């Protein structure tokens, strides 16, 4: 299996035009800039928040890692809102209202994600049931006829 190139792999095909624009203007790559907030506690909050949101034009990259210009804008936006005194929850709500659940790295728990969130537990419970059943039967068999080794 091939890895698709980072630029393509990380910057989604859905927004190919934007991506192409990025390719041909090398300067458009915006490194997460060291425009840190002077208050360390606020900066730490910004860094933590950045990791919870996805760069919406990329594939699987968080805002914290992305070189896309949009991600740079959103990093600035998060900082501006922190300075303006908004809580993490308020910032999260704002971003979700603007970009939808897609921006959350951790999918929200709601009816259409129940299967996603409870699926693994369900598999485990069913698996545990099967284990108990199989072991029970094997045990009965072992007790009935002593094994010939």
């Amino acid at each position, binding site marked *: *299996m091939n*890895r698709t*190139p980072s630029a393509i792999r990380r910057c989604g095909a*859905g927004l190919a035009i934007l991506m192409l624009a990025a*390719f041909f203007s090398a300067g458009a790559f915006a490194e*997460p800039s060291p425009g840190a907030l002077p208050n360390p506690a606020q900066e730490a909050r910004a860094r933590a928040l950045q990791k919870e949101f996805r760069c919406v034009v990329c594939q699987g990259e968080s805002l914290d890692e992305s070189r896309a210009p949009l991600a740079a804008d959103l990093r600035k936006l998060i900082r501006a809102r922190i300075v303006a005194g908004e809580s993490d929850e308020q910032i999260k709500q704002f971003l979700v209202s603007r970009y939808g659940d897609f921006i959350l790295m951790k999918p929200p728990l709601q009816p259409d994600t129940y299967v996603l969130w409870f699926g693994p537990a369900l598999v485990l419970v069913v698996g545990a049931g099967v284990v108990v059943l199989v072991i029970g039967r094997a045990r009965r068999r072992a007790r009935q006829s002593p094994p010939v080794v």
Partner: protein
Amino acid sequence: MTGEIGQLALTLALALSFVMAGAGLAGARENAVTARGVAGSAALGMLVFVLLAFAALTYAAVTSDFSIVNIANNSSTLKPLIYKITGVWGNHEGSMLLWMLVLTLYTAAIAVFQRGSGRLTSAALGVQGLLAIAFLLFILFTSNPFLRIDPPPFQGAGLNPLLQDPGLALHPPLLYVGYVGLSASFAYAAAALITREADAGWARAARPFMLFAWLSLTLGITLGSWWAYYELGWGGFWFWDPVENASLMPWLVATALLHSALATERTGAFRTWTLLLAIAAFSLSLIGTFLVRSGVLTSVHAFANDPERGMFILLMLVLAIGGALALFAWRAPSLEGGAAFEPVSRESALLVNNVLLTAAAATVFLGTLYPLVLDALTGTKISVGPPYFAATFAPIAVALLVALPFGPRLGWRRGDGAGAVKSLLPAFGVALFAILLVLVFAARHVAAAVLAFGLAAWVIAASALDLARRVGPWRGDLWAAVARLRFVPASAFAVALAHAGLGVTLMGIAGTTLWRAETLSLLAPGESVQVGPYKLTFDGARRVTGPNYFATRADVTVGRGGASLAVMHPEHRMFPTEQQETFETSIRTTGFSDLYMALGDDRGGGRFILRAYYNPLAPFIWFGGGIMALGGLASLWGRIRARVPVPHGQAAAAE
């Protein structure tokens, strides 16, 4: 000419694959000895022709024959020779041809190593033949690497620069050897169902292939993770990216299969389950290959861009997986099943192992495919990122690691639970000691570190203890004990290495994710920054020219405690042919930790952005993968040495 030779070779291989499928399946009947011989010869003939096709494509790539579309689109005269060769499988058509080549290699191996071993092998060759037919049709009709273009372009479009890397040159072949190797256990499982010889024989015949596939997959995933680490420039090693998950799922199921097949071979337990796992492992390989190849993972809409290829893929998946499952549903109920064992026994431990591994695979499957399915069905877009897997996959992995050391200590059919616990007390002590060390020295994320290092120490110590118990270093002379290692069976080494490797990898993952130090700074020449124990001084950056790129190369002096240790050179490369940039990281490793640097944007006036990470224990992630693969190799070695030809039909009697 080259293109036509390749085309002709593939067409002849297709003809032979029909012969092999027909003869192989016909040979599954009693006394159809002639058909079996034909199937074996067809397998070898197919190998010759697919090799020829592959050589033709490689020759075209090396000689830059741009009259072939595939070469024009993916190569260029400016590329170094090595990447002209590895570029052959750096694109869709070429990688499908590689897949086919690996399939024929395995098929030929089955034909050669199991020659004359009867109905089962013949049916397995038949199934491989069916797979080969599907693949060759797919290649010839939707992904033909030998199509011509007229007039040929003067220069090729080049290969994606990220793929121009030694790690990535090896990664796809290793992964394919793993994926396709699972076709052999799939074929044997199907053959067992077809011939109704679903006893221990098929599991024994398929085991070397299973082991080889598993160890290649382990190495392939390890290499892929390493590549992502040094090439992508984020210091991350696993992104829970769908492409990565596509390789993790077959690995998890193949791991479950190796364990389950052990019980099937030994006591005949879990017969039907092992058959199902063999089918599932290869099905996931197919799904993995095609999800990645069809582009569905990037976007559901990519599927619609190339409907012909997409439909073909879908049809193949349905036929292969659906066909195998239908065969299973039809024949499995008639299998005589039901092993007898006590609740505390090796069988029970393997059962627990299998449930946890299956649940882990199901979790990755859900996390990878759920967003696609939800988008396709309702149009709702969600993201499933690392936090999801941390919440669901990690607990399952923890349970697996807690239980793991008990398995090898329990006897078949009836184990000694109290004895196992008692014999594990020293390992428990080592784990407690590791936890104590963490508590004393760790400054950050102490709770998570206690769990991770406690578990890692538990698993590694238990594995070491297993080997120690066999040679008894406490019985006097230590050197004599070391010498006694020669008499330890390869299978014991295999278990110890594979399990300990997991612990080593866990240490690497925990150390890196919990204790990483990172800085992101704008530096003018002469300025310094501290990361972890290192002081980095930026001495400026200069332009350099590579064979097919221009680069900006930085000089960064690394110092520790006043002494200067090294000069590192992170690079930023621009590939004019491909119009792409890459970031060449610079990594200095001590074996216990990595200092990792990536050069960022040029901010004018000689100032650059530098991203640096101090990653404690990062190398352990890949050491662990290597140790696990060594475990697989040890097991394979033991098999080959102990190999006694099993006469047809007496497999069960030998038990």
